[in-house]
């Protein structure tokens, strides 16, 4: 393998530099082909194609790779039971490589060239914003499985993750309750991009309605991939030492969470003194962290692996078996499930049910059939697709980190909560309609 690559390289160099860069790109593509084999896709006529648009390389690979595997697992299950409308499902996996413009390019390729019936994909809000015009222009269908900041409602997207009122707001309410430690001062800490900034804008407005003055809110942002949290933790300590119970609300995304939590543990900032509640940290993100010093820090989601109910037991078991059979790195020894995986799984099955109801994979017919679909979710509740607003009705859980990296559920809603994509805490949202405009924007 390597000698081949070297030969190619030598040949390249002999030919001089003229179209060197072009050649270099070919060379790298060869490297990519050799070293990162994609699953071979069987070609047959009588199948329904499903697009999978998740980053398998780059910064977001840490979170998105398992979502690709979750879609593949659900497809395998559905195919084993005879497929949809008598046809087998055929996944088309592409890698947008954590590159936001590439997301749009790959989405166009999936819809226009591969003619997929639907796409499951995206994690960061910036990638979703990047593909949105493509889906609206080509009238495609996207299932987006991650919690996000709201402020968006497209006819072509079904949002199976949480809106702010299904995650952020209840979590902060918990922190302010007696059991959550009756916090009166808040640090809003996040990665510097659209999701944390919008969420914190909503939270600031929400805290204002709870009579928290601006002086008691500290907002801090770090760049993507930040690794040195010494100063920030020092600042949090100082802020917390100035009086009143303090809590940290973290919207740090991606692998920055690992150094953040390591520093937190080593600097001895204990959950019982200053609890940290995170919105983008789940079982998978804590895989690379020693969780013993972190016991008691919190996360808010609509699903945790530690939930005890028969549907979840079965889901976890299926995932463990699938990970073992497919030899998925990491998961084959220590299978973990998380909220976005559950949301992905619900999405695939709801799409299947909608297609069966519509008796067609036509985008508009499926969108109409999606309204009011229900699915018995691993969260233990029946998730329902809202009749109008393209979001799920989901329960909310708050969990505390345990020594083994799982979560101990300390608070939950009594039942599913309807999503409010237009947060009432942002001015002007009260006039917005709780359903997408049914004419696609041109």
């Amino acid at each position: 393998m390597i000698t081949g690559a070297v030969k190619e390289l030598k040949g390249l160099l002999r030919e001089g530099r003229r179209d060197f860069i072009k050649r270099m790109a070919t060379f790298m593509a060869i490297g990519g082909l050799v070293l990162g084999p994609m699953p071979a896709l069987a070609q047959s006529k009588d199948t329904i194609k499903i697009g999978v648009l998740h980053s398998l390389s780059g910064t977001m690979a840490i979170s998105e790779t398992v979502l690709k595997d979750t879609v593949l697992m659900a497809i395998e299950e559905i195919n084993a039971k005879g497929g949809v409308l008598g046809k087998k499902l055929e996944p088309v996996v592409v890698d947008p490589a954590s590159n936001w413009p590439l997301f749009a390019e790959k989405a166009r390729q999936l819809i226009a060239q591969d003619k997929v019936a639907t796409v499951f994909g995206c994690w960061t809000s910036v990638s979703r914003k990047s593909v949105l015009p493509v889906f609206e222009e080509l009238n495609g269908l996207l299932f987006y499985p991650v919690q996000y900041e709201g402020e968006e409602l497209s006819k072509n997207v079904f949002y199976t993750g949480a809106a702010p009122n299904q995650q952020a707001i209840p979590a902060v309410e918990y922190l302010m309750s007696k059991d959550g430690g009756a916090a009166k001062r808040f640090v809003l800490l996040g990665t510097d991009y659209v999701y944390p900034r919008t969420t914190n804008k909503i939270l600031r407005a929400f805290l204002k309605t709870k009579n928290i003055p601006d002086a008691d809110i500290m907002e801090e942002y770090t760049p993507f991939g930040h690794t040195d949290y010494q100063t920030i933790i020092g600042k949090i300590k100082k802020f917390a030492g100035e009086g009143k119970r303090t809590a940290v609300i973290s919207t740090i995304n991606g692998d920055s969470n690992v150094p953040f939590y390591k520093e937190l543990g080593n600097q001895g900032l204990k959950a019982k003194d200053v609890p940290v509640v995170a919105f983008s940290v789940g079982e998978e993100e804590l895989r690379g962290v020693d969780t013993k010093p972190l016991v008691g820090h919190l996360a808010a989601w609509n699903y945790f692996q530690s939930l005890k109910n028969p549907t979840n037991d079965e889901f976890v078991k299926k995932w463990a078996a699938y990970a073992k059979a497919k030899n998925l790195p990491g998961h084959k020894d220590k299978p973990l499930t998380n909220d976005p995986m559950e949301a992905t799984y619900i999405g695939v099955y709801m799409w299947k049910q909608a297609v069966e109801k519509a008796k067609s994979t036509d985008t508009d017919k499926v969108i109409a059939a999606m309204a009011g679909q229900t699915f018995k979710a691993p969260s233990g509740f029946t998730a329902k697709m809202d009749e109008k607003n393209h979001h799920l009705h989901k329960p909310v859980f708050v969990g505390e980190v345990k020594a083994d990296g799982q979560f101990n559920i300390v608070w939950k809603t009594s039942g599913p909560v309807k999503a409010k994509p237009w947060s009432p805490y942002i001015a002007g949202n009260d006039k917005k309609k709780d359903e997408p405009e049914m004419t696609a924007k041109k």
Partner: protein
Amino acid sequence: MTRPKWYRLAAIAFLLLASLGRAFAIDGETAKQLGAEDGDAKLAAIQRLVGAADPAAIPLLKALQDDALVLVKGRLVIIDGDKAKDALSGASVDAPADQREAITVNNRIRAALDGAIASLKLVSPDRAERVAAARAVAGDPSDEMLPLIKTALSKETDDEVKRWLNQARALVEIKNSDPALRRAAAKLLGVGDIPQAKQILGKLLEKNPAGSFIEADAGVRDEASNALRAIERRALMPQIVATLFSGLSLGSVLLLAALGLAITFGLMGIINMAHGEMLMLGAYTTYVAQSLFRAYLPGWLDWYIVAAVPMAFAVAALVGIALERLVIRFLYGRPLETLLTTWGISLMLTQSVRSLFGAQNVEVANPSWMSGGFNLGADVVLPYNRVVIIFFAAFVVFLVWLFLSRTRLGLYVRAVTQNRTMADCMGIPTPRVDWMTFGLGSGIAGLGGVALSQIGNVGPDLGQSYIVDSFMVVVLGGVGQLAGTIIAAVGLGEINKFLEPFTGAVLGKIFVLIIIILFIQKRPQGLFALKGRMAES
């Protein structure tokens, strides 16, 4: 003769029961409340157990803290491995896993438990245990603990324990209705190191919305403001030390990342874009060492890092040598080609690691002796892992200096980098020096990877986040100068950490970049330029 035998048996049984009863003289009703659904009820039960001042409650509370206390059909049961025993009587009971009902412990309960257990341990015969307990009690004492604290104080002879106990007592008594007690408490808090003392004292000096002071007694207010000033005076020094330390820590990380590059780029002039991947390989080697220890030498797990150091050096050095022999040696003197090729190789290395270990980050845990931190007082903690890395960086720099200035190969390296042709003429085997030097530079990057694995992420993309910083350090320090690299790394770390509190992390980084750009404009050769007649100049 049967009757006396019966009697004896009955007597023994009675004594046994009585002793059991003594060992578990916990009010059953109170204990039952520990299993209550409601957090307030649980808290009240914990405080009642503290009020009863019976150390027999410790195992029960400890079990609750460790999630080992469960309800089985309404009965409290302590689970210990695969054994289960009744929490009150201590008798073995049958508790099948599906009947166990976990008792939820949240942060609020956990905090109360920590204090409760500590307060019951205040009279322990072991000094170390008493110190720990007194410290924990001083962290968050409750009114119920006051009698326990007072009894402990009256018996205590050890100064350190006494100091913490006095702080704990002051924290409780500052809420007392007697102004004399409050005054004494405020005075005591002024000499202690309790993090929350500042906020409690500060509150005493605040005014109500109505305009009157929250603290009515002027004497108490005076004591409080004196105490507050004393605390702030004492906190100043540790805070400056903390900022210096975090700058030094960041500097040592930058130095370890850049030192290898200072040799390959600085001395040899190779633009090695795969340098970051050598760091990554070092970090992954650490992970492999940890896994090997976990599997084969679990008793020595804490020392895996010691084995990882030579392993990481060897792996990174071998990959570096292979890279030099197979690719780079054909490209000497052609910087653009070297840059693109090594960049391609860095992608290949990243992708192979991703295929081998998975796209997710792998877990590298700090050994227990590197977890936690050294408490400087005034809530300033120097984490051990960062302290170790600073010393490690100094050690590596020392070795490199020793190598370059005291060994024959080091002399060759300096000769070749200064004037290749002349060195060749003098009979120095330049190709051998080349691959050895490149191997050394890569190996040092591997060592840097070991250090990085202790504070950051270990993932396939690890290298990319450090390559820019590494080049920045080397270019700023002056190409070809080790001393420059060291000063540039530490200087950048300190500047960054002094800017960050004012500007935030995002702007801080931008400011540092602007400073570097301006500096390079003024001094393109970096901080330290090589003087003398060079082959290139």
